[in-house]
């Protein structure tokens, strides 16, 4: 077997790929409706939001931090953008700008607080989650925005393919967002110096400072990026749901974290890849979707997801223990 293939299979991503492939094969065989174009398109669309957030969270985790507040930032971003869009005719550029801008602002605030308060990132972002969400709910009285501008709702989709039943399949905004998020994150992490500096920071913060990496600036970038992605994700989610509800998104943070960690990102930083994250999201998405299609009642699906997470993180830990024991034997 060629060397790179061997190394690939031993890596976390390689093993995860096998698991995901096995799951897909199983589901395709077990239920005819899984491996259909319609289902796959629907899957991509409905998991675009979580997927985009996972891409942003990955960057934060690699830098050695964590962010729990992104669902709140997303909620604020979409609410502000849609309120403005309903009141003024601002068009796509406008909503993109507002969502991005609000998201970035929330992210920058996180970075600022983390850098100056001496509190760990999990505590700061728990606090900002409550601040953003609380203020949003207070200001909106929990009111949903039911009607969004037509040009927004009719959205952006480009029919790509029509099958023999005259059913059109479209490449929609959600897919665009999802793909862009992953591509952009991958480029940043592997093709730019900043990306390597983020890995370095997560790997050894002291050494990073000594090499001259400006931790505060990197944090601004990392949390700002998370905020930006959250803003964009909120936009595509609003377009999909065709309404904006201030408390619909908060509560899903830990699901996104689970996906990113299953994909191999470490909570201590320095480790994680886009491919791994994609696989992590795919694993959870296919699992939930598969359960649904197999006729498992929806109120049991969370139980399965939880069991899978537990098994997966346990397997990861056992693997790491074995790896460490082997390395110790080599060095002794």
């Amino acid at each position, binding site marked *: 077997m060629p060397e790179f293939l061997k190394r690939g299979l031993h890596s976390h991503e390689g093993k995860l790929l096998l698991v995901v492939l096995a799951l897909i094969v199983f589901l395709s065989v077990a239920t005819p409706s899984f491996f259909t174009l319609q289902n796959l398109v629907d899957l991509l669309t409905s998991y675009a939001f979580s997927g985009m957030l996972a891409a942003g969270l990955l960057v934060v985790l690699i830098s050695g931090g964590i962010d729990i507040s992104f669902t709140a930032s997303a909620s604020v971003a979409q609410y502000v953008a849609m309120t403005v869009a309903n009141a003024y005719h601002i068009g796509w550029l406008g909503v993109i700008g507002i969502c991005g801008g609000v998201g970035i602002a929330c992210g920058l605030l996180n970075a600022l607080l983390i850098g100056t308060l001496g509190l760990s990132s999990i505590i700061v972002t728990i606090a900002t989650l409550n601040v953003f969400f609380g203020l949003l709910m207070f200001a909106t009285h929990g009111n949903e925005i039911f009607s969004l501008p037509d040009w927004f709702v009719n959205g952006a989709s480009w029919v790509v393919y029509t099958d023999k039943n005259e059913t059109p399949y479209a490449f929609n905004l959600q897919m665009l967002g999802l793909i862009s998020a992953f591509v952009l994150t991958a480029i940043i992490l592997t093709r730019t110096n900043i990306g*390597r500096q983020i890995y370095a920071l997560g790997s*050894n913060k002291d050494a990073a400072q*000594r090499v001259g990496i400006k931790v505060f600036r990197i944090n601004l970038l990392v949390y700002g990026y998370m905020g930006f992605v959250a803003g964009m994700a909120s936009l595509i989610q609003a377009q999909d749901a065709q309404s904006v509800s201030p408390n619909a998104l908060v509560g899903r943070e830990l699901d996104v974290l689970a996906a990113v960690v299953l994909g191999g990102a470490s909570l201590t930083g320095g480790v994680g890849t886009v491919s791994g994250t994609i696989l992590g999201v795919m694993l959870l998405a296919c699992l939930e979707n598969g359960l649904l299609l197999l006729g498992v009642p929806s109120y049991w699906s969370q139980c399965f997801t939880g069991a899978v997470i537990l098994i997966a993180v346990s397997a990861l830990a056992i693997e790491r223990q074995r790896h460490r024991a082997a390395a110790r034997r080599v*060095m002794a």
Partner: protein
Amino acid sequence: MPRRSHHGEDTHLPNFIEMSGISKHFGGVTALADVDLTIAAGEVHCLAGENGSGKSTLIKIISGVQPPDAGGEIVIDGTRQTHLTPSESTRLGIQVIYQDLALFPDLTVAENIGFAQHLSGLHGARWAKLRETAQAVIARLGVQLDPAARLGDLSIAQRQLVAICRALAADARLVIMDEPTASLTRTEVDTLLGITRELKRRGIAVVFVSHRLDEVLEIAERVTVLRDGRKLGTWDAQEMTPARLGTLMTGHEFDYKIAVPDLAAAPVVLSVSNLSRTGDFEDVSLEIRAGEILGLIGLLGSGRTELALSLFGMRPAESGEIRLNGKPVLLRSNRAAIDEGIAYVSEDRLSLGLVLEQPIASNIILSTLDRLTGAGGLLSRERTGASVGHWIEQLGIKVSDPENAVRTLSGGNQQRVVIAKWLATNPRVLILDSPTVGVDINAKDGIYAIVKSLAAAGMAVLMISDEIPEVLYHSHRILVMQSGRLKAEYHPMQITESALREAIDA
């Protein structure tokens, strides 16, 4: 004894650094007073001194982290330097490799080597250039490193090589290494020596900061000794001995005469027969009597710490027998070992011996918590207070408040806290693993005095070390361990330092 000699002195190489009249005061404290130092291009120089001698401050001044007080002059490469900054110092070719190496375990070797050149700043990552640079440097140095390997998967010695490569990639003219041999095996030290020669051949000066006196003299061409911020002098390494160096560094003559008591009549406390554990040690047999200090010396990788951990129940042996006071014991956990009366003072005081952030008092009672209870199973304030007070007094631990974090104590006092913790468990056998690592020479004596008084009171002591003077002058009997086996036994009065060194290196 064959010394690794350096092939003549290159007497006419220009001086890379000339420092004169360097002083540094912090508030009322004098860190450095009127120090001169010259380092020639390609020279291997050692800076020797105890904690507080000023050597760290001097390094910081050379690397631009701290400015010297007015009046001092630094000339680097013929140019007088005013306002030396870290980046300027790096530009001039001064690289410092600290003991913790400051590398990124999750990045590859190539990324670590070329980070400063190719990965800082805002632009696309130049992977090809990075690989080139790394490969070039690795080849120049003649070492075996895989540029694509993840740094965290490498051994400490290999990581050190990466750190040196990184210095080289930054066009170093002077590489300062802080305690480079602390975690290296004998073979690895030899590799380092080879690397140093290679650096020297390229005209790169190397400054070692080390407290390992015999290695210092092995590696260096010249030695500068600092004490209390002043330079005592610079000597050729060949004219120096570890003993003389130690005296210079501390200003004291140490009475290195040990009186070995007659222990023939003392009962055997610990008896080990044919103990083996695959990959760690094989067929080890030894005996320690009450009141005896048995020195076990071996370099890193000889299996000495693994043996200690077996005796302490943390890495149980696979075959062989351990007897305490004649009774065979099965030690499957450290709790079992402690209950049988065995205590282990780890060589890694900061991570394994102490909980640095917590109070001194909590550290002292850590191993005896279950014995200090009172009403209702809760900790009794009287009993814990009495225990803490007793040990602070008994071991002479200098504390202003036992509730202070143990982190605030000096190395020597911290070690006394660790010993206190273990003595509180009322052991019959005390295993000390490199007990004076990171302890000032002055404080070392205090530790040795404690050990001797414990032995005099009947404790069986196993003192493991890789420092020859430590076992030669402070134990009653010496065992040499190599590659997992006990090689030889010596009586300290019947062997010299150099002979012992040979026996270990052979």
